[in-house]
């Protein structure tokens, strides 16, 4: 039963990626303002425009363009950036891992805090601890990330000057190896503030979902039976309540990842983190289509892959799906 679900889910993931590709292709082609409008400005002569359009293969029928587009995409060739005149992949390859690593660390850390705080809040039901946590959660959830970002930046960087103003490395520090970039104190020193800000926003989704789920499960019969077995309250809270409440937390991951990716863009802008988010925003402002397409596609890939991972995690967590029901 499990590998059937696995194969189905992988097929679904690939289908979603293909759909993302299709949506993106049509979105850019059919939008008002032909993609090459910014380059092929009106002032150029007629035949230069035609020549440029031909070089961007815009004159061929749509499906031919689509096939070429897919072919090139599979070779990670997103075309040449209008603005920087260098292949898009060069720009993106460096930034892709910055975003992925950042999101991974922030998400894991935020989920960890969310789950722990949910347990604390349920343990202290209706006491001051619980209401304080709800207030904190609601305010963090409701405040846009750039507001928290600015406030955190102002306090810790401007006034207290504990942390750098942004960016990922001090000037001059860099390393050739892929991992070298991340596994050094300088990176950590630069990363603490943005990750702290991002996790302030992300932790609310797992926190509220888990808290509501745990409050609902308190009335379940297996909790009463566990108590009847002479189990201590703490064990019941962790082993039975929290463990069961993990299922809904993972199923709500799809929504949480949606927020995380938006938060990612904002945090990168505020902290000038050289990730895909900043690249997307600035290239959109500059109407640099190939780069927009590239960053948008890869951000989509991250979201789809993280949804896929959370579904597999759910498969692992909930035995009812792993084992088919047979008498």
């Amino acid at each position, binding site marked *: 039963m499990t*590998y*059937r679900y696995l194969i189905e889910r992988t097929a679904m993931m690939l289908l979603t990626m293909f759909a993302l590709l299709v949506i993106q292709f049509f979105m850019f082609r059919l939008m008002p303002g032909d993609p090459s409008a910014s380059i092929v400005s009106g002032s150029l002569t007629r035949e230069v425009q035609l020549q440029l359009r031909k070089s961007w293969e815009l004159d061929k029928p749509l499906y031919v363009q689509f096939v070429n587009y897919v072919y090139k995409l599979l070779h990670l060739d997103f075309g040449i950036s209008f603005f920087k005149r260098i292949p898009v992949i060069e720009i993106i390859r460096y930034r892709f891992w910055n975003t992925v690593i950042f999101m991974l660390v922030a998400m894991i850390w935020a989920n960890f805090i969310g789950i722990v705080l949910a347990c604390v809040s349920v343990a202290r039901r209706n006491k001051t601890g619980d209401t304080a946590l709800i207030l904190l959660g609601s305010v963090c959830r409701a405040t846009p990330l750039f507001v928290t970002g600015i406030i955190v930046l102002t306090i810790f960087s401007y006034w207290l000057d504990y942390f750098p103003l942004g960016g990922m490395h001090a000037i001059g520090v860099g390393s050739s190896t892929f991992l070298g970039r991340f596994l050094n104190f300088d990176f950590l020193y630069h990363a603490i503030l943005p990750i702290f800000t991002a996790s302030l926003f992300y932790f609310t989704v797992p926190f509220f979902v888990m808290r509501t789920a745990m409050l609902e499960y308190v009335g379940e019969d297996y909790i009463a039976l566990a108590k009847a077995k002479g189990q201590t309250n703490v064990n019941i809270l962790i082993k039975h309540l929290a463990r069961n409440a993990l299922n809904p937390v993972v199923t709500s991951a799809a929504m949480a990842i949606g927020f995380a990716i938006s938060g990612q863009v904002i945090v990168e802008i505020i902290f000038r983190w050289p990730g895909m988010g900043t690249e997307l925003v600035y290239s959109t402002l500059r109407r640099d289509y190939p780069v927009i397409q590239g960053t948008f596609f890869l951000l989509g890939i991250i979201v789809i892959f993280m949804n896929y991972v959370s579904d597999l995690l759910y498969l692992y967590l909930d035995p009812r799906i792993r084992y*088919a029901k047979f*008498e």
Partner: protein
Amino acid sequence: MENVKILEVINLKKYFPLKSASFRPFAQRQYLQALDGISFAMYKNEILGIAGESGCGKTTTGNILAGLYEKTSGQVIYKGKDISNLKGKELKQWKKDVQMIFQDPFNSLNPRFTVFRNVVEPLRIYGLNKNVNEIEVVSNALEAVELRPAKMFLYRFPHQLSGGQRQRVSLARCLVINPKFIIADEPVSMLDVSIRSAFLELLKNLQQEEELNVFYISHNLSEIRYISQRMVILYLGKIAEIGSTDQVIDNPKHPYTQKLISAVPIIDPNRKRERISIEGEIPDLVNLPPGCRFQSRCSYAEKKCFAIDPELIQIEDGHSVACHLYSRS
């Protein structure tokens, strides 16, 4: 009772497709054989009881008759026509004629509607409320189910009523468009024992007065004995025994029926009941062995039972059984 057939079920089958566990795309699709060819007749103005353990297909039969499930094969003949190829007006008439009461009193009424709105719904569906005073019709229906005085119940919500009262409102909802058939799917099994007989009495009297036909589904044999004239014993989607209640309960022929009756606990501590022991669990409904379905748990099983599936044979007037012990060969 004059035995005019009002409804006939011939070789009714219902298979539920199962998601095949193996991923081979052309893997032979596995089916849950809920009903595997049952045939019986309902006579006019009679309560027919259907008994059997959970998973024997009694609720599936009820749902097929009520139109909730579509049958895989076989026929249900009503007024000479098979109900599945009724069209337009005739289909609407059949839908009006058959109504259903459900087991769970807490969820069989729309929690957001008042009692009045719940009971008047069938009238509004068929547009019968045009030239008639709705309040009056609903009040009569409530009085008919002994919810007196009716106006006290009209504008209350289901959560303000007791379990027994809610089941009566469901019954009133059926009566309001005077049906020919009522399918009762274990209507009293969630009610307290002390108020069950009142509901059974009510159903019996209404069946006589309104000349209804009740299709009474239950796993409790004493209930079936109390209310129905004829009964059917189902086991894993096939009829084990069919006959009048006294015939079937007083001298059961099929080994399964004997076991079912001997397992019912007796209220009088002085009278001992000899318990026929039975081993094994109900076999899995997906890949069933050939031959009689009770073979794995029957103490009389012989060679023939493992090979051929016994048909229903009439052993006395109106009483037939599907077991090789009685087959003529």
